[in-house]
């Protein structure tokens, strides 16, 4: 038998993939620096998913502290164990182990902002009663020092019942070695002593616990306390509802339970603060003065305008070269693949025009998403977003929204896709949905190619007074978009989404320099989410549309083309031959589309669009543009036999020359105006629908948005066409 020395395996050789020993909840107020602490503790070893049934994201990271492997859950910020929003509810539910698929935390890492101890202590006091091992990371200690505050850590630890406190600065890493060492030993930290008592509540809670234990349900005393305080807490069985109701009536009488708790606990908090904290010296730095000045209404508004302009410019100016690069890249890839695969077969077409183009149509959004979210995350991290919302709140309320909607709506002028993702910052659900539905109305950059083509070809380039007519029409289209969005929000908020005027209680974060690491992590997250959720839908739609334009193949068209090519080669040479061959190619493509499923669909729906003055070609192009508006120009090019890459002039020429079977021109001014209005109000973007689906967690809203906007676009086009005397 082998001796122990020979069978011992060195520690380093044991497989790295061990199960985590325990789960630690990272809990604290919003804007306390929780995520920064979490990111520093877990680095890239974190994983984001969704909690079941809600759009709240679950971030879990695994890390090793002193050889101990721990799972850290970054819980949404909360101010108390009585949740006031979905985010806070998730945090509380996870703490109590009530969320399916998420481990009940064994210990707690509380993250408290040292410059806002008053609110932090409220939550801390509730947490100490949970009876689990707990340590506290006291963040932004450098800011507290700058303000001249002094915190007696020992006194505070004692006041909390013996909870170890670790001052840290998340941005610089100061204090983290001690915190890491503490996490290694967290499971052996004794639970805090209870230092503040509410005898009546505790007695009532304990009697509830005892009664339910008899019925077979085990409840922690704190859970029972929360049940007694919260009006909407999930109760366990119907009998317990009566239990809880009578206990509440006896305990609180007419005083709202939340008010009673707040009054009691904050009295304790004030007493504790008096003992442990000495106030700042009140010295103000120049930077702080500047920020206070910028917070004033008028300087603030000016700053907001400048900032939005900057963001807008950045998204357009910086994104465009990147988008072009991606386009070129995918185009190049397509060519390479096309040269490898057998030409003219469905496989080649599927891979090149379906798959590669399809994937390309997803990737092409990334530059705009990245840039917009870089800005938004930076602004959020500095605390500016809340300030901006504060400024414009009054104006937004007049259209039924609230201040927090302004940045997502303004960003929609670049692209609605990242903006709708950005509506997460809006806590009120109804408000958020109203914003999501208003966003696609803002004239996004994808509408511009269509506008440019139609306005350039059909609106006379004259001056009306001092204004250029073409510019006027473009501006009018922007205005119509805004009007549509605002009216939609108003309509929704006064009917389907009727509800209280969104409450606007915000703890306004202090201005601080953005944490690059946090911003980068959040950015990566957004990209991952977009590629996975939205990307799959967009890709699927692109492939489907490809199939519609490709099938069924017609041998006759190919034969006709082959025959014509033979003729051409016999009669022409050199450049003339090249041009003729190109023309033949374009005509063949047009014929193919004419008899494809898409073309047939165009013919089929034509009667519905004839009142708008459209023929089957326009109808087919609009259908093909469904996944992405920009595609319409390329499809129009193909259908009118100038090829996909046709320049505007050639295409415009063809459009002007297009005729109905009875000889009348298709593209008259009224028809074009109607088409423009259709584009202004119609939702032709699978990407937008995909993110709406993701952000509202149901198909109901994207379907509604699409139907509603299509109906609006149709109605508007019809009205203009008829009113213009057609």
């Amino acid at each position, binding site marked *: 038998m082998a001796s122990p020395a020979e069978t011992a395996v060195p520690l380093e050789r044991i497989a790295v993939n061990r199960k985590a020993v325990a789960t630690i909840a990272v809990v604290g107020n919003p804007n306390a620096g929780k995520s920064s602490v979490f990111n520093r503790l877990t680095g890239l070893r974190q994983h984001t998913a969704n909690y079941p049934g809600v759009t709240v994201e679950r971030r879990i990271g695994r890390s090793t502290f002193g050889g101990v492997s721990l799972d850290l859950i970054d819980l949404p910020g909360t*101010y*108390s164990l*009585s949740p*006031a929003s979905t985010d806070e509810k998730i945090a509380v539910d996870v703490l109590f182990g009530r969320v399916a698929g998420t481990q009940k935390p064994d210990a707690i890492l509380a993250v408290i902002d040292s*410059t*806002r*101890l*008053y*609110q932090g202590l*409220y939550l801390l006091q509730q947490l100490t009663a949970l009876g689990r091992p707990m340590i506290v990371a006291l963040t932004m200690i450098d800011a507290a020092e700058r*303000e001249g*505050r002094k915190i007696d850590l020992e006194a505070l630890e004692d006041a909390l019942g013996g909870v170890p406190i670790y001052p840290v600065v998340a941005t610089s890493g100061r204090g983290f070695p001690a915190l890491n060492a503490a996490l290694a030993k967290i499971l052996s930290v004794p639970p805090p002593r209870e230092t503040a008592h509410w005898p009546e509540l505790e007695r009532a809670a304990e009697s509830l616990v005892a009664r339910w234990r008899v019925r077979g349900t085990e409840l922690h005393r704190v859970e029972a306390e929360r049940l007694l305080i919260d009006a909407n807490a999930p109760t366990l069985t119907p009998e317990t509802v009566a239990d809880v109701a009578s206990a509440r009536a006896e305990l609180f009488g007419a*005083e*709202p339970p*939340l*008010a009673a*708790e*707040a*009054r009691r606990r*904050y*009295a304790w*908090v*004030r007493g504790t*603060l008096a003992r442990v*904290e000495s*106030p*700042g*010296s*009140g*010295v*103000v730095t120049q930077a*702080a003065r500047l920020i*206070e000045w910028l*917070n*004033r*209404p*008028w300087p603030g*508004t000016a700053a907001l305008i400048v900032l939005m302009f900057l963001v807008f410019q950045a998204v357009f100016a910086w994104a465009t070269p990147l988008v072009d690069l991606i386009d070129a890249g995918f185009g190049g890839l397509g060519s390479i693949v096309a040269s490898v695969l057998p030409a003219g077969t469905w496989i080649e077409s599927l891979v090149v025009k379906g798959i590669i183009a399809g994937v390309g149509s997803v990737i092409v959004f990334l530059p705009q998403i990245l840039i917009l979210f870089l800005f938004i995350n930076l602004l959020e991290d500095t605390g500016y977003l*809340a300030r901006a919302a*504060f*400024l*414009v*709140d*009054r*104006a937004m*309320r007049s259209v039924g929204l609230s201040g927090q909607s302004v940045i997502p709506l303004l960003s929609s002028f670049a692209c609605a896709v990242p903006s709708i993702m950005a509506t997460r910052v809006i806590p009120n659900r109804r408000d958020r949905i109203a914003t999501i539905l208003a966003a696609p109305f803002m004239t996004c950059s994808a509408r511009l190619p269509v506008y440019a083509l139609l306005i350039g070809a059909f609106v006379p380039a004259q001056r009306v007074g001092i204004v250029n007519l073409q510019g006027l029409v473009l501006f009018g289209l922007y205005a119509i978009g805004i009007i549509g969005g605002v009216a939609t929000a108003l309509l929704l908020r006064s009917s389907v989404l009727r509800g209280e005027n969104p*409450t*606007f*209680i*915000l*703890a*306004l*974060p*202090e201005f601080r320099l953005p944490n690059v690491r946090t911003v980068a992590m959040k950015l990566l997250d957004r990209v991952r989410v977009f590629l996975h959720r939205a990307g799959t839908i967009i890709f699927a739609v692109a492939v489907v549309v490809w199939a519609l334009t490709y099938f069924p193949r017609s041998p006759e068209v190919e034969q006709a083309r082959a025959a014509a090519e033979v003729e051409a080669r016999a009669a022409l040479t050199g450049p003339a031959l090249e041009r003729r061959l190109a023309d033949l190619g374009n005509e063949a493509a047009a014929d193919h589309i004419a008899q494809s499923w898409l073309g047939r669909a165009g013919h089929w729906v034509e009667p519905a669009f004839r009142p708008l003055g459209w023929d089957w070609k326009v109808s087919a192009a609009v259908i093909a543009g469904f996944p992405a508006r920009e595609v319409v120009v390329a499809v129009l090019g193909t259908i009118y036999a100038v090829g996909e890459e046709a320049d505007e002039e050639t295409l415009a020429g063809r459009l002007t020359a297009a005729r109905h079977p009875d000889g009348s021109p298709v593209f008259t001014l009224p028809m074009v105006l109607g088409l423009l209005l259709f584009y202004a109000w119609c939702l032709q973007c699978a990407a937008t629908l995909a993110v709406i689906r993701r952000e509202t967690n149901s198909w109901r809203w994207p379907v509604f948005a699409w139907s509603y906007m299509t109906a609006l676009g149709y109605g508007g086009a019809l009205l203009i066409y008829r009113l213009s005397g057609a």
Partner: protein
Amino acid sequence: MSRSPLLTLADLKPGDRARIDSIETADPAVQRLMVLGLVEGAEVLFLRRSLGGDPLEIRIYGAAISLRDEQARRFGVVKTASRDAQPGARQGVVANGQPR
């Protein structure tokens, strides 16, 4: 003897310091503000109103909170200092630059 009209949070001017004295607790939004620390005895500094007068911003023991005018009306206060006067009770607030 007539009672003086009750002063609320909404009646303060920028720079005023006050102590919360009474609260109409029926509105859930008011209770939410209590959870954030606006309880009787708490000392607040009124900072500013936004464009259009609503919402307004206050500072309470180092934290800035914004709330709507109608919610502010539910909090009865007693003024402890005005903008031009010396700062009142200790708060540890950065905004007014008077060294202690």
